[in-house]
């Protein structure tokens, strides 16, 4: 049984594409056949994060408009050979693909792949609606920040209206120090407010940037804390029960204050 998962967020720039690339690599490392479909048409990025930008011949629009069969447009990853990318067009816009076309494409892809991950554009307009239409499940990515959580809530509402009930949450770019000092929304706040099942808590990590620079997702980097968080998410997607990692570091004064004044 294959799973079609859309990675979405509402607010832009919270880590959808980074998450799609990392989970794709992670699932492939576990031996799964994976295809990543970039639906952020006009703003092609997923190819860069995977280091595949020089191998693109055809794109999603060529496939949906019937110019080439999907197999011709798939780009195989250099290192992880069960991972493929279906890149989008850099010149067309989001209206170039409609929901029916994407549903049909994903039904074809199901025959060959265990996981089909759809990288969704920001916003709640047509591009979002198209990306969501084809999915069995949704992963909502947010950040511990007031506007990102509000937009995640909005997206969860929209997913409900589209009858997508299988929704998981990833909170990205957590800064443990700020959570510790009480200057960042913490996981309890976010779980309480959004009340959907959380499958990932990812720290802010400079290795996300350096790995993006190189076109090698951080999940492959042993020392990356975000990479570790992504490895845990992959295991959870595959049905394992993995405890959330602790990255709260309590400073000396914080401890003292708690001793003296209570919580």
């Amino acid at each position, binding site marked *: 049984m294959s799973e079609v998962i859309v990675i979405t967020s509402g607010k832009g720039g919270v880590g959808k594409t980074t998450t799609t690339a990392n989970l794709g690599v992670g699932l492939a490392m576990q031996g799964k056949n994976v295809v990543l479909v970039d639906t952020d048409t006009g703003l092609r990025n997923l190819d860069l994060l995977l280091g595949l930008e020089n191998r693109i011949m055809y794109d999603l629009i060529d496939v949906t408009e019937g110019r080439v069969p999907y197999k011709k447009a798939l780009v195989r990853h250099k290192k992880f050979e069960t991972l493929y990318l279906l890149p989008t067009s850099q010149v067309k816009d989001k209206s170039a693909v409609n929901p029916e076309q994407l549903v049909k494409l994903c039904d074809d892809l199901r025959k060959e792949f265990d996981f089909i991950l759809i990288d969704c554009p920001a916003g709640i307009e047509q591009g979002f609606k198209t990306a969501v239409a084809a999915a069995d499940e949704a992963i909502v990515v947010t950040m511990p920040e007031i506007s990102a959580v509000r937009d995640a809530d909005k997206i969860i509402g929209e997913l409900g209206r589209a009858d997508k009930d299988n929704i998981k949450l990833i909170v990205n770019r957590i800064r443990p120090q700020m959570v510790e000092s009480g*200057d960042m929304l*913490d996981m309890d706040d976010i779980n309480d407010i959004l009340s959907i099942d959380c499958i990932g808590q990812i720290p802010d990590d400079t290795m996300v940037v350096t790995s993006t620079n190189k076109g090698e997702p951080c999940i492959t980097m042993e020392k990356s804390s975000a990479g570790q968080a992504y490895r845990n998410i992959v295991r959870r997607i595959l049905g394992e029960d993995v405890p959330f990692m602790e990255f709260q570091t309590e400073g000396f004064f914080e401890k003292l204050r708690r001793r003296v*004044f209570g919580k």
Partner: protein
Amino acid sequence: MIESLMKLFGKKERSGKIARDRLKMVLIHDHANISPELMINLKNDIIRVISTYMDIDQEDMDIALEQDADSVALVANIPVNRVKHHK
């Protein structure tokens, strides 16, 4: 003495908590933005339930969501013509 110590240790409200409280309020407002169709369905359901107990003036009744800075309330004004006999 204790108070000045508390200040020293930063016992004032932290921005994370302020964010949480603001977020909770703004989401109540976001969610309260319900469609006219849903309001009509709600109104009809309320009429049906109340009508088993009393005659109400459906023309003059009024149901609305009222929002102010820190709360949202469902406010109904339903004129009663006659209370039905208890069975």
